């Protein structure tokens, strides 16, 4: 049959039971089809690989963002609004936000005015697992409600599971306003702990010695400013 020559698929073969093709013919066509099938697999593999590039890129997008696009200097209030020697809670709208973020983009932080233009600005997130720490002014301690992490007034670790002091924001005073460099949720990965770990109770002499060179920079011994 002519049709059989032109379109040799299985269904047609069944219809044309009367005239089976020569075995050699079938073998040749079979090997060609196998080759074509393998070729089609290869082609689809290539298409898949090309398709994977934008998909993986889309998924990894958040991790590939530039750091500068995630942080910005934000005005958190007039210097005069922060009494010296006190620690106050301040809210700011996160610089990077989308309209449907709602309340979740209102970020709080603790501002400690030591004296004059000397400030410390602590992230709300506990250095252990990110829960919101609360300031207890009479005890001069930050306490975390989740696992009991406790920090001193200067943000250094006092007790509990945190392995470092509170995260600190970079800050500056400009035109009578306190500005902080913020935008990204602080975690251990964003800034690794380089300060002394696990300073539990040291003899007074050791604390004096380690604090003395840092007294001018007012760095918190358990942590470093975040983001650096």
């Amino acid at each position, binding site marked *: 049959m002519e049709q059989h020559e032109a379109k040799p698929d299985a269904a047609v073969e069944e219809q044309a039971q009367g005239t089976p093709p020569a075995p050699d013919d079938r073998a040749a066509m079979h090997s060609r089809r196998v080759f074509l099938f393998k070729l089609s697999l290869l082609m689809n593999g290539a298409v898949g690989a090309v398709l994977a590039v934008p998909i993986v890129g889309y998924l990894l997008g958040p991790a590939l963002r530039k750091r500068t696009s995630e942080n910005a200097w934000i005005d958190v209030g007039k210097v005069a609004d922060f009494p010296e020697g006190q620690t106050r809670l301040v809210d700011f709208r996160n610089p990077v936000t989308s309209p449907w973020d709602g309340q979740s983009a209102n970020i709080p932080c603790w501002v400690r005015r030591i004296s004059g233009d000397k400030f410390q600005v602590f992230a709300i997130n506990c250095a252990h697992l990110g829960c919101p720490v609360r300031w207890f002014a009479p005890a001069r301690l930050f306490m975390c409600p989740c696992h009991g992490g406790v920090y001193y007034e200067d943000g250094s670790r006092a007790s509990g599971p945190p392995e470092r002091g509170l995260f600190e924001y970079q800050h500056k005073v400009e035109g009578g306003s306190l500005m902080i460099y913020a935008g990204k949720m602080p975690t251990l*990965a964003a800034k690794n702990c380089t300060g002394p770990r696990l300073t539990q109770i040291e003899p007074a002499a050791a604390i004096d010695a380690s604090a003395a060179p840092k007294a001018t920079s007012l760095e918190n011994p358990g942590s470093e400013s975040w983001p650096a």
Partner: protein
Amino acid sequence: MAGMKQVAFRVYDWFEQRLGLGQPLIEMAEHQIPESTSSWWYVFGSAATVILVLQVMTGILLALVYAPTAGEAWNSLQFLDHNVKLGWFLRAMHGWGSDFMVAIVLIHLAQVFTFGAYKYPRELTWMVGVFLLLLTLGMAFTGQVLRFDQDAYWGLGIGASILSRVPFIGGALVDIMLGGPIIGGETLSRFFSLHVFVIPGILLALVGVHLWMVVRLGINDWPMPGRIVSRKTYMADYHKLTQKNGIPFVPDAAWKDAIFAAVIMLAIMACALWFGPFGPSGQPDPTIIQTVPKPDYPFLWIYAVLAYLPPSLETPVLFIAPTIAILAMLLLPLVAGEGEKHWSRRPVAVLMLLVIAVSLGVFTRLGMYTPWSPIMNAWSSDPTPAADLKDRTPLERAGAIVFETKQCRNCHSIGGAGGMRGPALDSIATRMTEDQMIRQVLQGGGNMPAYGDALSPAETTALVHFLDTLRQGHAPSAIDASKRLADATPAPSGQAAPAPGRH
């Protein structure tokens, strides 16, 4: 009526001729199983499947109203609870269904482990089951996130903080998890996608594979001591078992599954009616920091473990322990694929199961009342017991005020009220001398912060005088024995005298 029946048969035949599914399904339902497996112990897997169907159904119904955006999710849950007819009940069903699902899946796991069902030839069934457990927990966690309230918000913070501890790629993982620089719109959207599309898709596919293997390999025969599983003989033995005293799964065994599933469904409905929906707790507003975040109960034990790990061990344990646990579960059937199935011949397995179950129970219980956390408002809400103020000097009463106002109460209880982070101080004076208390208060130690900066000398004196009165039942004060010894030792000859100030 006979005519109707005729029509029904003809309609069935019309479909069956084209679909061809009816006959194989009937054969599958009626396949022979060993008589011993028609047992109330074998009903948990089917119950979990039924709850899964419930969860899919209630989930779709909730999605009709739920708004998956960070700004509106919480409001839409309030709307569901208060403005949508029976919305609260659907939310309650979905929430309780989730808790029942986790519980039943865990019971199912414990049962098949105890009955040695993971052994040849059902190794892969078990392994797929391990993934089903993880996916179920994944559904529970992502579901908690969709209830976008304070617990969800800070739970995400905990999740991000845990991921941030992964070496090298921790930061990138946090970015991918949150979708943006903070917990916000993108974060909720991706958890919505996970909870509604990704995890259920994989879950349903794997449940299909799991069930296919259960039917294909037959239900695990009831273990008998001495009936050893061997790769060479098991299939023939099982075949003999089903031939000798086999019964059709439907209806001879399935009625138990059906009754148990119905009871579980009734229990979920009863809980939903009685206890109502879960939350939502406070709004997902991070500026409201007067919150004590807590995970849902399937994760309370992890929350507790995280409180007890020493800081230096935390990161390694967080990542190594789960890896080992999951690998051990996956490899279990490959390592112990043959041998005894009966629990009486597997004491190590039974003991392990008990230890794990008790540990999970203990940590979950601890997670319910978090003794490691300061009670944030104890200092202002728990009054000093009157008995501790009666017949006290002005100085001691001033100390009681220091004790309250300096927030000592957040970690230390008196009269059963207050935090449990530090020891209860009802009888502290019987254990510590005045000197020891002054040292402990000013310098801290153990797990206590130093209060040297926060207390004036006058406050310290008053506080310690108050603490000195805390002796239950007029027990004697603690005595500094070494000081008395030092005082008694003749001064000049001196070598044996202890150094002053050392206790």
